């Protein structure tokens, strides 16, 4: 697919915004200052003002309803700059879940707040080391939820928790107030310096949605597709920084970019990055158009993006040599995010497994 003019404009303006207000140096500051909120508040505010927090919120709730392709374009720039915001948790996962499955009342309460930037939302799905959304232990019974969750992105600053639980008949999302009695939240800082929380729910009041099952599935799909775009952007940035280094670093009296073995590997990396970008956008577009194979495309895109980002991070560090191993240099941040982002909402093997099942083998 090619971007239309509107999408192209969005991409240009977001690229400027993220490079100006959310560069990698901000991630470093937040990490080094052990920031309490753990995300870039001025940047988030700027995103609110630009309407980006409402990019998936329907217009009647104050959003701009730009669709997943739009959200993916934002995520690409987030990936390039490693900008730290609750965009994925709130503007993508939260907004998609609520607009898909919430009751009219729930939507009116939360969707405008998301668009206006007055509420952060976190999705609580995972329970163990690996993402297994169809095999949950967390129970919903008689209006109450009990269970243990982890990898709840931005869980320690959220105003609303959307908790995946099973009532015996299947998995669905439920609304939980993080301040409700029985909720215990432990902030955990991940290798990529992002926030995730471990949250215990001990017989906590929970509110069902109109269609919490659809909300869960649709949010997961949207999140995977947007993460694919973020990882594609990250990969592109690592590739470009590495290519720049190959054109600048000398050893043995010549630019290291003149060594053919590195040239071929750089070319192969570029090809993977370029394909990953194309696939991520195509998958986002397939979701927006409710294409028949949208699920397969999203699993392919997320799986491919996870592999490409990790490869880019590995090659980026290796080709930078010793300097790439230092914390002072930025490239390591990309490698760390590549792994964390790759793991989130299902790693490459998870995606391949689903992709194969959809393919009938």
């Amino acid at each position, binding site marked *: 697919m090619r971007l239309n003019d509107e999408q192209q404009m969005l991409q240009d303006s977001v690229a400027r915004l993220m490079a100006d207000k959310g560069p990698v140096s901000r991630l470093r500051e937040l990490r080094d200052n052990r920031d309490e909120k753990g995300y870039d508040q001025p940047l988030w505010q700027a995103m609110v003002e630009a309407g980006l927090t409402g990019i998936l919120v329907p217009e009647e709730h104050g959003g701009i309803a730009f669709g997943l392709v739009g959200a993916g374009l934002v995520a690409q720039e987030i990936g390039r700059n490693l900008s730290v915001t609750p965009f994925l948790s709130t503007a993508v996962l939260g907004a998609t879940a609520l607009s898909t499955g919430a009751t009219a009342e729930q939507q009116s309460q939360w969707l405008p707040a998301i668009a206006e930037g007055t509420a952060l939302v976190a999705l609580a799905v995972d329970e163990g080391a690996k993402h297994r959304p169809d095999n949950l232990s967390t129970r919903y019974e008689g209006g109450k939820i009990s269970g243990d969750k982890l990898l709840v992105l931005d869980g320690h600053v959220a105003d609303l928790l959307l908790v995946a639980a099973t009532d015996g008949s299947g998995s669905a999302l439920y609304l939980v107030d993080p301040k409700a009695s029985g909720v215990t939240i432990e902030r955990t800082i991940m290798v990529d310096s992002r926030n995730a929380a471990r949250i215990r729910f001990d017989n906590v009041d929970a509110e069902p949605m109109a269609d919490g099952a659809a909300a869960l599935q649709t949010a997961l799909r949207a999140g995977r597709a947007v993460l694919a775009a973020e990882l594609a952007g990250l990969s592109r940035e690592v590739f470009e920084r590495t290519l720049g280094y190959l054109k600048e670093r000398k050893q043995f009296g010549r630019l290291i970019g003149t060594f053919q073995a590195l040239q071929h590997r750089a070319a*192969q990396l570029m090809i993977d990055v370029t394909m990953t970008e194309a696939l991520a956008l*195509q998958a986002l577009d397939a979701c927006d158009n409710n294409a028949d194979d949208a699920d397969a495309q999203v699993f392919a895109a997320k799986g491919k993006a996870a592999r490409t980002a990790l490869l880019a991070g590995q090659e980026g560090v290796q080709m930078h040599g010793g300097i790439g191993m230092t914390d002072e240099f930025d490239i390591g941040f990309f490698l760390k995010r590549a792994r964390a982002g790759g793991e989130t909402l299902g790693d490459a093997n998870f995606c391949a497994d689903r992709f194969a099942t959809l393919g*009938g083998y």
Partner: protein
Amino acid sequence: MSDLEQFRAETREWLQANCPEEMRQPVRGPEDHCWGGRKWQFQSDAQRVWMERMAEKGWTAPQWPQEYGGGGLTPEQAAILDEEMKRINARTPVSNFGFWMLGPALLKFGSDELKRKHLPPICRGEIRWCQGYSEPNAGSDLASLQTRAEDKGDHFLVNGQKIWTSYADKADWIFCLVRTDPNATKHNGISFVLFDMETPGVTTRPIELISGESPFCETFFDDVKVEKDAVVGELNRGWDVAKYLLTHERNNIGGEPPGYLKGRALGPLAAEHVGTENGKLADSALRADIARLETDHMAFRALVAKVRAEAEAGEGVGALSAVLKYYGTELNKRRYELMMDAMGAEGLEWESERTQGGMFASEWLRSKGNSIEGGTSEVMLGIVSKRVLGLPDA
């Protein structure tokens, strides 16, 4: 009804009326593909009739100008024709290097005279062309070719040897790179000339491949007389034409496998051979490998679609064609390896009816050539690193 809608309706009706039933059956093997030319033996009346009817409409070369025997269709119309043909599974009426390669070169570089002389017979399927590029010592380094065309006043005298000439033994004419100025630097002094394969002094010898097929020949030129007006483009500027065609050729590779795997999904095929457990392939490592391959292929198709959309918007493909050539052929090789993994012993039988004479192994072996012919993978990566990434030479 818009013009295009009307065109679609008329096309559908015409195809329905004119495409013989037999030409709507899936291709069973290479012999079902109509190459055309003086030596062509039609497999059936239907094959001949279908070629002639399409040629009459100009639809053997839908987008070429009508004055040269083509259909004069716009890209949108050509896409509709293509869709309508696919809808009824209509076979390609005729195809050979004249359509894929020489035609585009002539349309871009040829004189009006050359176009009038050569394009209509191509469109009518009367002349089958082959390509004379590689030489034993000029493979990846094509520009070092040594076949000479000496200027003898009213004609050239061509001497030398080509290799990998596709179906030279079956073709009528050849388009050929020859050195017309031996004193010029490597890439200069090469001309792109056309001549009849029946000219005295031309001999061919088929090369048997490891796959058992012989689609290529060695071709020898011993004092072959070639008319001086048979040069496409400027004298000594044949490299420009060749480069254009190489890029064009690489563009045509979309990573879709030919032959047995064409249109067949690998996963279900593997399931037939290795079995399933709880609905999943019994060989779980193979399942993971196939899913990774198909994911990569989906990514590749997304890239191809993007490149095509950009090309249609006039942004040009340029060196990205090397990306497509490289990755498409490497994917294809991976796919055949996994097919062989899946088929196990059944894929290995060579001389047996069960495998139609070793078709599976033969296609697997043939795929190894994909990353060599038309520019090796190594050459493609070199082009990408130099021309796309801008990495410097040593």
